[in-house]
């Protein structure tokens, strides 16, 4: 990707809370108009990373430059140039839609001749045109999320930080939300978004996988899926997943077994060879209805693999 002037440069960023290390030497950069997704399990450090970059938490060590400004030197200047949507909904429930917009417009210093236009824009974008005077507490989840996004873009920020913006929102609202993010990106806004939905990761231009405060993978969704996950993958359908999983794990050549819906994903050295052994082994134990085939790894397989390897103390982290 062509990134002449990165919007964000993060260099060996660390954040410790007492003896707990929430961020451990994270480095990456984000280009203008890029959508960067942070993917990781709960407690991996995604929220901490976003909060540090927004100036809500001070980094313990390392450096971060946001919109050309070092976050530890002039956090107020950074705050003027960013928009932030926190994981927990944090608009005022006892104010109406327009009152919230007007408040954040004022706080972000939007000039009085611009404010009406920006509020109109935010209302249109969020699809809240006929809800101006509704109390926010009466809005459904999807509307609230879009209003929060509207409040975050009133001052035309160069960078948007969205911390799990779509958690608890129905799928069609999620889809609509991502359309908005892509529109903003097209206008040159850099968007950093954390999520734990694998399908949402595919909407990002690049993905940073985070586990235990460390960056364990970074790349486009396509590139990440192309990376070796340490073997070949078999998808196995069978009737009794619970019993099968223990049997399969003991078969030589099987590196890992994980449940995916009503199938099992088996990581092996050689798919063709091991698939036969697995089917034979299950048949021996009277488990019927077995059907195995080799598949291409999905983002989720990749994610599970990376998290597992990073948690093994002996193995090194992925690039």
């Amino acid at each position, binding site marked *: 990707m062509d990134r002449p002037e990165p919007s964000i440069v993060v260099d060996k960023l660390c954040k410790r809370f007492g003896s707990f290390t929430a961020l451990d030497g994270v480095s990456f950069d984000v280009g203008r108009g890029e959508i960067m997704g942070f993917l990781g399990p709960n407690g991996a450090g995604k929220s901490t990373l976003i*909060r540090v970059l*927004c*100036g*809500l*938490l*001070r980094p313990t060590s390392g450096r971060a430059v946001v919109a050309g400004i070092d976050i530890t030197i002039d*956090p*107020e200047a950074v*705050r*003027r140039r*960013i928009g*932030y949507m*926190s994981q*927990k*909904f*944090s*608009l*005022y*429930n*006892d*104010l109406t839609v327009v*009152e919230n917009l*007007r*408040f*954040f*417009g*004022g*706080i*972000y*210093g939007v000039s*009085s001749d611009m404010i009406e236009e920006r509020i109109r824009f935010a209302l249109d974008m969020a699809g809240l045109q006929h809800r101006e005077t509704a109390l926010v507490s009466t809005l459904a989840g999807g509307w609230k999320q879009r209003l929060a996004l509207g*409040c975050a873009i009133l001052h035309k920020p160069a960078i948007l930080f969205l911390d799990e913006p779509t958690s608890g929102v129905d799928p069609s609202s999620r889809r609509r939300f991502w359309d908005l993010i892509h529109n903003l990106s097209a206008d040159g806004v850099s968007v950093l978004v954390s999520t734990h939905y694998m399908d949402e990761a595919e909407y990002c231009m690049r993905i940073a996988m985070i586990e235990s405060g460390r960056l364990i993978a970074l790349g486009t969704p396509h590139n990440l899926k192309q990376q070796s996950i340490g073997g070949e993958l078999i998808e196995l359908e069978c009737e009794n997943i619970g019993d099968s999983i223990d049997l399969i794990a003991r078969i030589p050549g099987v590196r890992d077994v994980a449940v995916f819906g009503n199938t099992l994903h088996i990581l092996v050295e050689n798919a063709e060879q091991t698939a036969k052994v697995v089917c034979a082994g299950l048949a021996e134990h009277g488990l019927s209805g077995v059907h195995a085939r080799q598949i291409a790894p999905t983002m989720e397989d990749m994610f599970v693999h990376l998290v597992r390897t990073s948690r093994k103390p002996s193995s090194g982290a992925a690039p």
Partner: protein
Amino acid sequence: MNIRRIAAIARKESLQVIRDPRSLMIALLLPLMQMFMLGYGVNLDVQHIPLCAFDQEGSQQSQDLLKHFSASRYFEAPKMTANMGDAAHRIDDSVCRLAIVIPSGFSRSLADQGAATVQILVDGTDSNTANIAANYARVVVGEFSRDVQLKAIQRQGGQTQTLTPVDVQARVWFNEDLESRYFIIPGVVALVMAIVGAQLTSLTIAREWERGTMELLVSTPVKPMELMLGKLLPYFVLGMVDAVICLALAVGWFEVPFRGTLLTLFFTTSLFLIVVLCIGYYVSVSIRSQVGASQIALILTMLPTTLLSGFSFPIDQMPMLVRGVTYLVSARYYVTILKAVFLKGATISELAVPMACLAVYAIVLVVLAGRAFRKTLD
């Protein structure tokens, strides 16, 4: 400092107050309730003291003496007892504060020697009231002896005018009727303003933390001082409304004379309001929970204002060390000012010293409270 940001916060805060019945209750009903409760509850006047009498003689003259007690507004009509033990019981049971014992030779002694003795027993558990009650009893007995003297002189055909060599002509200033209400009510106004003022702002930051709105607020470019000024502004207006309510009750209901000017009152009340609002705000920043902050704010304002402001206990009677501590209590200055404005009609120039102290207090607290808020989640 950005006026637009301060205005945005002030407007938002006003909307929230208007829509939150709890805030409005604290702001408007609490002062009303407190004015009535404290205005009637705190009363240092000693009147209608219950007493009993053990009249061993039962003569015309002993009855005369007891009638003097009945006629006095300080005492209730004496309840007669049959013996000494009964009188003692009544004091033990707190039915009576005072007992008069008239000996059997009372009128004869008066007639023969021109002098007699009566015994007064006082319940000293409340030493202040006991003191006052004993003094009042002496005054009543004194009036009775003057009457006896007068009648004796008249009987001997002397002049009815008795001469007192030195006569004290006492005139009480500022509180002519020596009504304790007159100096207590201005103190109550100060107490109510202190409590309500700090309560109002004690919730304001804690509420943002509890509702999770603080996270977003911290991510915006608003400066701590702008946040504080914006948040204090609506509560200042509300506090002024409370001041008007208190003043109207003090003058209109409790009939305390108001001899100063409204301008002086407005100016000094503004200063005191800034002080207490900042105390509440500071607590709110430090505690982060609405219940906790409101409790701490209540203790921080009510205790010193009640005990150390000169509202209920005179400061010049306090031990040296405690007197020194009172200089740190902002209400001390406001109580002084209010009493002077109400009863003496003091002007701003006459109040320069306590006002300057209050102003310094206000400035220090604004700076402290403004800086107390840190824009970080650490």
